[in-house]
C-alpha cells in the first residue's frame, strides 16, 4: 500500500523493535504464567518486568497496574468495577467521552445510578463550572478523558481531581489518546483510576491496562483463575504485554522530539487548511500535537475521506469505532457545532514518521478534491 497513513489516533503500526521484543513469546517455548515450572516462571517474570516498566512510565508502583485486553475493557472495568462497590449515587461523565466510557456508564442507570453529563465549551474543553455545580449533588464516580480522540483537546483533569476530591467522588480518566503523546503522571493528575492502551503508541492491539490508586475498591469484570491479584482473570497475554511495555518505553524516550516535530507539521497543515477556509475544531484549546480535526464548508466528511483515500491519504471522518454511522460526531455536537458543519468533519492524526512532504502532498490533494467536489455539488444543485 502506498497510502500515506494519517490515522494514528485510530491505531498505529507496531514498531519493529516492539515486534522483536514480542517474538520470543510467540514462539514455541512460552508457558502459562500460573504454572510453577520454568516455562511458567519465565512468562511470569516477563509479565512482571513489563508491569514495572509501564508503572515507571506513569509514575506508579507495579502493583497498581492491572493488565486488560485493551482500552475498552479497562474503561468498562473502571466504570462498572468501581461503581459495583459503591452505593448508587450520581455518576458524572463528560459529553465527549468515547462510547466505551459513556455506554458502560449508561448501563449503570439500570443499577440505580443517576448518570449525568458534564458539558464542554466550544473549544472542546471541559466546563469546570458545570462540573463543580453537578458535584454539589452527591457523586460516587466521575470519568473524564485526558485528551479527546477527535479534536485532541486536553482536559483539565488535575483541576477536576481537586473538585472531585473535595466532594469525596472518585475520578477515572481515559488516557488512551493522551498516553505516549503527553507526559502522563498518575500522581500529578490526582486521579483514582486511569486507562492506557498499547496499540495507540506503537504497541500491539489486544492489551491495555487500568492504573489504580491503591485505595480504590474495585470489583472484577472477569471472574475466574484469579490472575492480576484477582482483579482480572484470564491467562496473561504475555507477548502483547511485553510488547506494550516496550512500546511505552520507546514512546517515553521519543516524546519530546516527537511532540516538537508533530507540532510543526500540524502548523504547516493547519496553515494550509485555513487557506482552504477550513473550520478547525478546538484550535484554541491545548491539544495533542498530532491531531487536527477540521471541516471544509459544504463538503461532506465521508465523501472527502473516500476521495482522499483514492488520492492515497488515510484519514478518518470521526472516531474509528463510529465510522459505521453517518451521525455527526457527538463531540462536535457537544461543542455546539452545527450538525451540518459537523458532518463535514475530517481528522488527521499524525505519527512518528509523517513528513513535511506528506503534509504538502496532502494539502494539494485536498485542494484538488475540494475543487472537484464543489464543482460536483454546484452541478447537482
Amino acid at each position, binding site marked *: *500500500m502506498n497510502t500515506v497513513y494519517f*490515522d494514528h489516533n*485510530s*491505531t*498505529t503500526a*507496531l514498531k519493529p523493535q516492539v*515486534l522483536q521484543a*514480542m517474538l520470543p513469546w*510467540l*514462539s*514455541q*517455548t*512460552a*508457558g*502459562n504464567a*500460573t*504454572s*510453577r*515450572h*520454568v*516455562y*511458567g516462571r519465565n512468562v511470569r517474570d516477563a509479565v512482571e518486568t513489563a508491569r514495572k516498566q509501564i508503572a515507571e512510565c506513569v509514575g506508579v508502583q507495579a502493583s497498581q497496574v492491572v493488565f486488560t*485486553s*485493551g482500552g*475498552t*475493557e479497562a*474503561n*468498562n472495568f473502571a466504570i462498572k468495577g468501581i461503581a459495583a462497590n459503591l452505593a448508587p449515587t450520581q455518576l458524572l461523565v463528560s459529553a465527549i467521552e468515547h*462510547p*466505551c466510557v459513556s455506554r*458502560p456508564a*449508561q448501563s449503570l442507570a439500570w443499577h440505580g445510578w443517576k448518570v449525568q453529563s458534564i458539558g464542554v465549551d466550544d473549544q472542546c474543553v471541559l466546563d469546570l463550572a458545570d462540573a463543580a455545580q453537578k458535584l454539589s449533588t452527591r457523586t460516587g464516580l466521575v470519568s473524564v478523558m485526558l485528551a479527546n480522540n477527535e479534536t485532541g483537546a486536553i482536559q483539565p483533569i488535575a483541576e477536576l481531581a481537586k473538585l472531585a476530591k473535595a466532594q469525596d467522588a472518585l475520578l477515572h480518566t481515559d488516557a488512551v489518546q493522551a498516553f505516549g503523546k503527553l507526559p502522563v503522571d498518575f500522581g500529578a493528575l490526582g486521579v483514582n483510576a486511569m486507562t492506557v492502551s498499547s496499540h495507540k503508541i506503537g504497541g*500491539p*492491539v*489486544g*492489551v491495555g491496562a487500568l492504573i489504580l490508586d491503591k485505595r480504590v475498591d474495585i470489583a472484577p469484570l*472477569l*471472574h*475466574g*483463575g*484469579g*490472575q492480576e491479584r484477582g482483579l482480572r*482473570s*484470564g*491467562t*496473561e*497475554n504475555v*507477548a*502483547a504485554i511485553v510488547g506494550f511495555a516496550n512500546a511505552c518505553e520507546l514512546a517515553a524516550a521519543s516524546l519530546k522530539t516527537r511532540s516538537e516535530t508533530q507540532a510543526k507539521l500540524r502548523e504547516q497543515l493547519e496553515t494550509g487548511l485555513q487557506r482552504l477556509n477550513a473550520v478547525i475544531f478546538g484550535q484554541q484549546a491545548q491539544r495533542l500535537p498530532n491531531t487536527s480535526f477540521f471541516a471544509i464548508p459544504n463538503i461532506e466528511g*465521508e465523501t472527502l475521506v*473516500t476521495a482522499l*483515500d483514492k488520492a492515497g491519504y*488515510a*484519514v*478518518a*471522518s470521526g472516531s*474509528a*469505532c463510529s*465510522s*459505521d454511522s453517518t451521525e455527526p460526531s457527538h463531540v462536535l455536537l457537544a461543542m455546539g457545532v452545527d450538525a451540518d458543519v459537523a458532518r463535514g468533519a475530517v481528522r488527521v492524526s499524525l505519527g512518528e514518521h509523517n513528513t513535511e512532504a506528506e503534509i504538502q502532498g496532502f494539502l494539494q490533494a485536498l485542494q484538488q478534491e475540494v475543487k472537484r467536489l464543489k464543482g460536483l455539488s454546484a452541478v447537482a444543485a
Partner: protein
Amino acid sequence: MSERKPIYLDYSATTPVDPRVAQKMIPYLTEDFGNPASRSHPYGWTAEQAVENAREEVARLVHADPREIVWTSGATESNNLAIKGAAHFYASGKGKHIITSATEHKAVLDTVRELEREGYEATYLQPEADGLIDIEKFKAAIRPDTVLASIMLVNNEIGVVQDIEALGNVCRANNVIFHVDAAQATGKVEIDLEKLPVDLMSFSAHKTYGPKGIGALYVRRKPRIRIEAQMHGGGHERGMRSGTLATHQIVGMGEAFRIAREEMASENERIRALRDRLLKGLLQIEETYVNGDLDHRVPHNLNVSFNFVEGESLIMAIKDIAVSSGSACTSASLEPSYVLRALGRSDELAHSSIRFSIGRFTTEADVDYTIELLKSKIGKLRELSPLWEMFKDGIDLSKVEWAEH
C-alpha cells in the same frame, strides 16, 4: 540461562504457538496493521477481511455459521460473557437458577458465584468418581426457574469428556439455555454444533496452538440466543462485545483452528499411542491411581496420583519435566485440587497427583524419559516416606491416630 529446559508435558495449561500460526500472524503485526473498524481506508479493509476469514475457520472446526462466532480476549471472557450475558438476559422470563458442576474451570465457577452474589441460586453437581456427570442427577437438578446450565466438554485436569449431547437434550426439553466450555476440547474431540443441542460454547486459542489473549464465544442463531454485553463501547461484534479487534491474534486463532481441523484425526492417533505408553509405564509403579474415567477421555491427558509421596516434594523431584499438579490456574496455591476432591479422592491422593498432558511436539523419547524419571524419583521419595514404611509393614494408615497440629 544455563538451566536446561525441562520436557514440556503441560499442554493443557497452554500450548506452544505452532510455527505455522506465528508465520501467519506476523504480517498482521507489521504491514497490515489497520483497525478492522476503520471503514474509510484500505488499512482497515484488509484487517477486516482477515478477521472474517479467521471467523470462518473457527466456525468450520465446530460446524457453525461464521455469524455465530464472537471474538473475545479468551475463554475466561467467553465464559463470563456467556453465563452472565445469558443469565441477565433471560432471568426475567425464566428465573434465576443455574446448574453447573463442581469440576468446572474457575472461570465458570467464579462467574456463577458472582451471579449468586447478585441473587441467583446455583446447583453445583458433584460428578461420579470417574469424573462424569450422571444424566439422571442432572435432570433431577432442573427446576422450573432454571435459566441456564453450564457444563464443560473436556475437563482441564482429568481430561474426561462429558456427554454434551445427552445433557443438551435435557436442557432443550426443559427450555434451559445450555452453555459449554470447550476451551480444552478443540482439536481433541469432534464438535458438531449442527447436531449438538448447545446454545453457547466457549473457545480458547492458546490451548490449541494459537496465541494467548484471544478466544471466541459461539452464540447460536437458530433458535436465536440473546446475551447481554459485558463490555460496552463502539458496538463491535454486533454489539455483543466491544473493543478494538486484535487482528493478528484473531488471524492466529483462525490458522490454529484450521490446522486443528485438518490434522486432528492423525494427531490424536499419535498422541493416544504416546499416552498409552506413558500409562503402561507409570502403572508399573506400585500404588499408582489414575484419576478420571479412561474411556471417556481425551488422549492428551493422564492424571495420576502416587500414594505415600507428598505432592510438593514430588513436583520438586521431577523438575526435569514440566507438568501440573492440579489446574494451572490454581497451582500457585497449596490447596489440593478441587476437581480431585470432587471425585472423592483423599487430600493425600489429591496432593500427590500429577497431570501429564501430551501434545503436538511430544516424542516417544520424552515419554520414556518421563517414565524412568518417575520410577526413580517415586522410589527415592518412598524411601524417605514414613507412610510408605508403615504401609509396607502392613499398618492400616486410616486407623492410625495422628498427632495433628
